[in-house]
């Protein structure tokens, strides 16, 4: 092997694993985030503030603090650890499953907050109008709320995806650095830099940079199209 490959096979494995994690997490986040944000946007429950604060915590905490507590609670002496053991799943730290759970908690505010503000922006008259026209709450949600929230849904999914791809500290703490299982692209770049393999680091970083830019470009372009479609931002 005279000419070093631009990407090592480890790099490709890390990229594939990163994509797999981000897609899994984004799908779960959308399923959890949409009802959660809808409830927060409409409720007058007195626990609302507390729940919002809890969801927003990962925005403020250093990933190492969050990682530390998650590591403890997922471990053999923690409540999540007890639960997963009882369910016969073993312990979550240093597994792909552990990374999925961690990423969901870590990226939740990036999905819930844009969705919540989108849902809040929908004229409540429209939902009432749907009800007077015979639509059940679920029917109105699917036929009125979701289509009117298209841009918010897209923003939430992209932010959740991008944030999961970009994780580093918490991935290192919970997942460790097991090739093919928990070694994500961000950690792989770190390893390359540590080993002075700048060419590999360049290529992998460049791919991440290009990918991020293209995703954001697509998001802004599509949202601009939508504004033209029916005049709302």
């Amino acid at each position, binding site marked *: 092997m005279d000419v070093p490959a631009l990407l090592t096979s480890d790099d490709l494995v890390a990229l594939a694993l990163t994509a797999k994690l981000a897609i899994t997490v984004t799908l779960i986040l959308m399923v959890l985030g949409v009802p959660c944000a809808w409830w927060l946007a409409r409720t007058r429950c007195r626990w609302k503030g507390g729940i919002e604060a809890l969801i927003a915590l990962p925005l403020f905490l250093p990933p190492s603090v969050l990682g530390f507590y998650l590591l403890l609670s997922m471990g053999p002496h923690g409540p999540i650890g007890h639960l997963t053991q009882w369910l016969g799943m073993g312990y979550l730290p240093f597994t792909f499953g552990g990374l999925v759970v961690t990423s969901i908690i870590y990226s939740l505010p990036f999905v819930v907050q844009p969705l919540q503000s989108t849902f809040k922006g929908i004229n409540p008259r429209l939902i009432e109008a749907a009800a007077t026209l015979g*639509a059940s709450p679920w029917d109105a949600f699917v036929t009125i709320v979701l289509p009117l929230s298209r841009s918010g849904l897209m923003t939430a999914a992209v932010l959740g995806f991008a944030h999961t791809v970009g994780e580093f500290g918490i991935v290192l703490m919970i997942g460790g650095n097991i090739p093919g299982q928990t070694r994500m692209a961000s950690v792989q770049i770190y390893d390359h830099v540590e080993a002075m393999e700048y060419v590999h680091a360049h290529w992998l970083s460049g791919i991440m940079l290009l990918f991020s830019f293209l995703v954001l470009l697509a998001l802004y372009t599509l949202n601009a199209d939508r504004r033209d479609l029916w005049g709302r931002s």
Partner: protein
Amino acid sequence: MANRSVIRVDLTRDFDTFRLKLDLTLPGQGVSILFGSSGCGKTTLLRGIAGLDPEMRGLVSVNGEVWLDTRLSYRLPTCRRAIGFVFQDAALFPHLRVRENLAYGMQRAAGRQEGPGFKHVLELLDLEPLLERFPEKLSGGEMQRVGIARALLSQPKLLLMDEPLASLDATIKREFLPYLERLHQELQIPVIYVTHAPDEVLRLADFVALLDQGGLIASGSLEEMLPVLAMKPGFGDGAGTVVPARIEAHYPKDGVSELRFRGGRLWVPLLSMSEGAHVRCRIFPSDVSLSVQSPVLSSVLNVLPVTVDSVSEVEDSARVIVRLNLNGTVLLASVTRKSSRELDLRPGQALYAQIKATTLAK
């Protein structure tokens, strides 16, 4: 309690600074208007009837069907009440074309009573040219027409309208009222209509409920309620009598039409409707003058014998409102306090009322 062909509404709702509490029975057909100044609770009441306010307590029954009875913890959800609701801002779905907005209620109305058909409603409200547009490409008046059509096409047993003209400017309003009058004449669905505009009361109402500060002041047919409304500051001289009449004959040479009503005969400027058609004539109190004897020679065409029902002074005004009985039809006249004293107006007195033909309007 669950009487046929009446709408019974007995509702209570507490707000921080305001309490809505009223017990109202409305006729099960025709247009009933909830009238009052803004903040009197009329919109809250309408939302209660629609089931849009989860904290509303009491009873709602519509033509024998109970929709709300909180004593029995019964609450029919809005989506299962056979209503059409016309919102002040039309509330059209912005992501759907006009055609899809109209279809939204139709698709979900399966199994409800037979109502006006799609073609009929389109014609009535002139919507054919708008079908493929998105709501943002519509004017205020067009949006409101679509809103009404959408409500009608969901085959409602009751149509609720929340100040549908309030957001329109005066010109559009004038163009729009005839559409509502057409609906009134052609459709059998009972309507509850909220407004604070005297004009709309006079042109559309069969029945009026007057609300103030969350309570009911009075209710009754338009004819019964006009004297009450005329006393209300703000309704002012805009109030008048609405006399239902039938076109008897046209005299194109003289440029007049002859109308028959319960109290006799009226001459009005030539009308375009065919003979036999029913019209509602509006007579302003200030256009009615009174005299003790029948004027021998007068340029005024309409001179009718009347008896005085009541004489009421209007607050902060030099005028009095005289309620006249014209063989069962009520007529209002506004005269100065001075004239009232000089004519010595008192209940039971027989007089002649002169009405200028030109002030009669459909």
